[in-house]
């Protein structure tokens, strides 16, 4: 018995050392050769939960699906860039949108992309059991949009009423193939969601949940030929580990998580640093279902107690963000620089805290542990609110659970830190965050909802600008939310990677075919 046991152990030991030895020697050269030249490896904190862009709606997921699924078209501040769609025409009365697909489109499995797929995707969004439909491309003001096939490549969308943002919203629609789902619009648990249902320049090679997502060049892509062979998303959840991996050359893309990272990367040879305004708004919101805020003066007290400069300097440092003044981001089409943000007024804040009964209370603040700067922001807010005798209890929740806890009608917490993308048309995301589609616990006054509505129904650009200026002003006056910062997106790549500069949208990169290695 003993002898057998020992010899078994010995065998195991020998094999283990042998394999380990081989591993070390065989790896070194080979791996670094291939990687640098033809694949872009990017770290992520978690893999996508679904390969279906209609179900995967959070930023981290969109980042991974960007090379894999194309939009119809993208409306930027000064131009429209066409992807799957060739054109989209709006009728005189602003109610009918006729969208025409390009005629050489193929799914990654080789089937042609047709109007039927558009209709199918549309119907999936209409099927509320899917819990999808954040894109809201199927509803305008809670009334259904009608989609009709005109010919094999053309679909006409008939709106119940005029909506100025519908044009850019429709462009964001991500198509899914009807044949992969057998035409069944109940797609929530469909197995096809984990198979290749993409249309972008990179197709699926391998998806390992919690580990990696590997994409490779799609030969039949309709656009210009992708130049990098592989795009790889690798799960490295810890920011320090990401940095180590970047310095070791295991990955060749690094989104900086702090000022120090930017500084240290700046000093490294062979690395190029890129900075984009992310177009996001980081804000502090209060939960209207919580009785603490029944007296609006309590909200004012909190807003007035905060020192925004100090928070942004402390949490974001010199590179990573700037103070926010509006609920629209600095990359929003209708962002207005002249809106005044909140200013600190401690005396006023103290007396309001006293009179509203806020002083002496302990309140709960939730933040998303997977979003940068949130913890430091939370700590600084906690510290600053001590000045008005408010005790803040901070609770971090990771990205997977954050929205389930925060976007509820429960009254068990007071404040939360969140962020939203606010690039382009304000009606797409900003409105959703504030009108009860997502952030159902934000107490938006009717007046502001009306302004959102009015902005949606106005097609004249000048007029819209005026409406949105008033809206931003009103939101500030109503103590709706406290926009804290507009973060920058700083990312480092090896300086051999070219084409990163043309693309100014986040999540990067809008068009992966533009990227190449020198």
């Amino acid at each position, binding site marked *: 018995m003993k002898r057998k046991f020992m010899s078994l152990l010995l065998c195991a030991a020998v094999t283990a050392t042998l394999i380990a030895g081989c*591993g070390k020697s065989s*790896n070194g050269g080979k791996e670094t050769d291939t990687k640098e030249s033809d694949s872009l490896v990017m770290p992520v904190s978690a893999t996508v*939960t679904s390969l279906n862009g209609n179900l995967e709606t959070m930023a981290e997921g969109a980042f991974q699906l960007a090379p894999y699924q194309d939009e119809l078209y993208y409306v930027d501040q000064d131009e429209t860039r066409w992807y799957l769609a060739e054109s989209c025409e709006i009728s005189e009365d602003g109610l009918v949108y006729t969208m025409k697909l390009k005629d050489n489109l193929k799914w990654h499995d080789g089937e042609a992309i047709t109007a039927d797929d558009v209709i199918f995707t549309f119907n999936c969004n209409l099927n509320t059991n899917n*819990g999808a439909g954040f894109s809201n491309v199927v509803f305008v003001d809670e009334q259904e949009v009608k989609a009709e096939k005109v010919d094999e490549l053309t679909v006409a969308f008939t709106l119940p009423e005029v909506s100025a943002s519908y044009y850019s919203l429709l462009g964001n629609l991500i198509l899914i193939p009807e044949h992969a789902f057998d035409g069944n619009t109940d797609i929530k648990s469909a197995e096809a969601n984990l198979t290749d249902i993409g249309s972008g320049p990179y197709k699926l090679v391998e998806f390992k949940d919690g580990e990696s997502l590997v994409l490779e060049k799609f030969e039949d892509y309709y656009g210009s030929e992708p130049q990098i062979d592989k795009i790889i998303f690798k799960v490295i959840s810890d920011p320090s*580990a990401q940095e180590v991996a970047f310095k070791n050359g295991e990955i060749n893309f690094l989104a900086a998580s702090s000022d120090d990272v930017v500084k240290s990367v700046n000093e490294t040879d062979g690395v190029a640093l890129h900075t984009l305004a992310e177009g996001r708004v980081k804000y502090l919101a209060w939960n209207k279902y919580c009785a603490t805020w029944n007296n609006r003066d309590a909200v004012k007290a909190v807003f007035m107690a905060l020192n925004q400069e100090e928070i942004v300097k402390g949490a974001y440092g010199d590179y990573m963000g700037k103070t926010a003044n509006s609920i629209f981001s600095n990359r929003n089409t209708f962002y207005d620089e002249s809106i005044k943000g909140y200013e600190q007024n401690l005396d006023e804040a103290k007396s309001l805290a006293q009179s509203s009964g806020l002083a002496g209370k302990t309140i709960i603040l939730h933040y998303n542990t997977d979003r940068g700067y949130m913890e430091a922001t939370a700590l600084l807010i906690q510290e600053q609110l001590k000045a008005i005798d408010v005790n803040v209890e901070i609770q971090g929740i990771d990205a997977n659970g954050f*929205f389930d806890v925060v976007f509820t009608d429960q009254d068990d917490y007071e404040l939360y830190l969140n962020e939203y993308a606010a690039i382009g048309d304000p009606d797409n995301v900003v409105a959703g965050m504030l009108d009860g589609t997502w952030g159902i616990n934000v107490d938006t006054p009717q007046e502001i909802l009306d302004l959102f509505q009015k902005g949606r129904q106005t097609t004249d650009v000048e007029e819209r600008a005026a409406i949105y200026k008033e809206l931003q002003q009103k939101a500030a006056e109503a103590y709706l939310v406290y926009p804290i910062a507009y973060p920058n997106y700083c990312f480092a790549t090896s300086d051999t990677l070219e084409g990163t500069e043309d693309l100014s949208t986040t999540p990067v990169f809008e068009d992966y075919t533009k990227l190449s290695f020198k």
Partner: protein
Amino acid sequence: MKKFIVNRLAQMLIVFITVSIFSFSIIYFSPGDPLYLYTSPAKSSYKMTDEQMDAMREELGLNGNVIERYLNWAGNMLKGDWGMSVSNHQPVKDQIMDKLPNTIGLMGAALVLSVLAAIPLGLLAGYYKNRWIDNIISGISYLGISLPAFWFGIMMIIVFSLHLGLFPSAGMRTVGVTSAADVIRHAILPVIVLSVNNTAVFVRYIRSNTIEQMEEEYVTTAVSKGVPRVQVMKNHVLKNCLLPIITMVGMNFGTLITGSFIVESVFGWPGLGTLCMSAVNSRDYTMIMGITMLACTVLLIGNFLADVLYGFADPRIKQGKEKSNG
């Protein structure tokens, strides 16, 4: 022997049922409506009607009293239906089974490594009791049981991965490379970190056992008769020292499981630990229940095997040993 195994199995069954009740009640008594996880605005922009809510409740087995619900749940678990994950709507069992080999591999390698390292170290320390070599080994083993594994892991990453560049810092493979060698290269640091605690425990155990054996009469007699000490060591002491390791391995299985969870989260190892952490964070209770039940099962089986193996290896040990050990 047969009686011992049957007895042990019966005990295991009782423990298993209790644990399952325990893990079920964690969820049952947790505040809030579990249904909310499906209907929250982050999951669905659509407000369900009451009938739809009831239908969903029925589908998820959330109707009925505690006992019905427990039996329903336990029945489904046994049938292999572990439910759907709340966060991505895919079957829990598939996701767990997908990750299980990674965790088992990590644990297994760590276990082998710690046994292999502990045997010579423990014997040496015991043989040279209180000499400098013993002092060094014992000192290190004290460090080993006192090291916070996650901290040690981070330090290892800094030294071996960042500064020396010997090993990758995270993950289980280089993407696109499918060789076993690559997995092993990724596994070296986590396996070392995971095995440190167990190695230290084993070393201390073997050391004290060796000392005990060396003082036994048969050893002292043999030595006084002129048999070389090394000979005695090889022929007698070794055997009596090594047998109890089997029990030690069994008893330390629990530490190994929780240890692997921590190590996984430090090294971003895609195993059950990482899966469990994100499940806890997203209140994905079907996933939490699945993982806890599986971990307990693995632990119970580990303990059971250790006991039985020990029984085989040393027939003197039967029920009696259990009593005296308490």
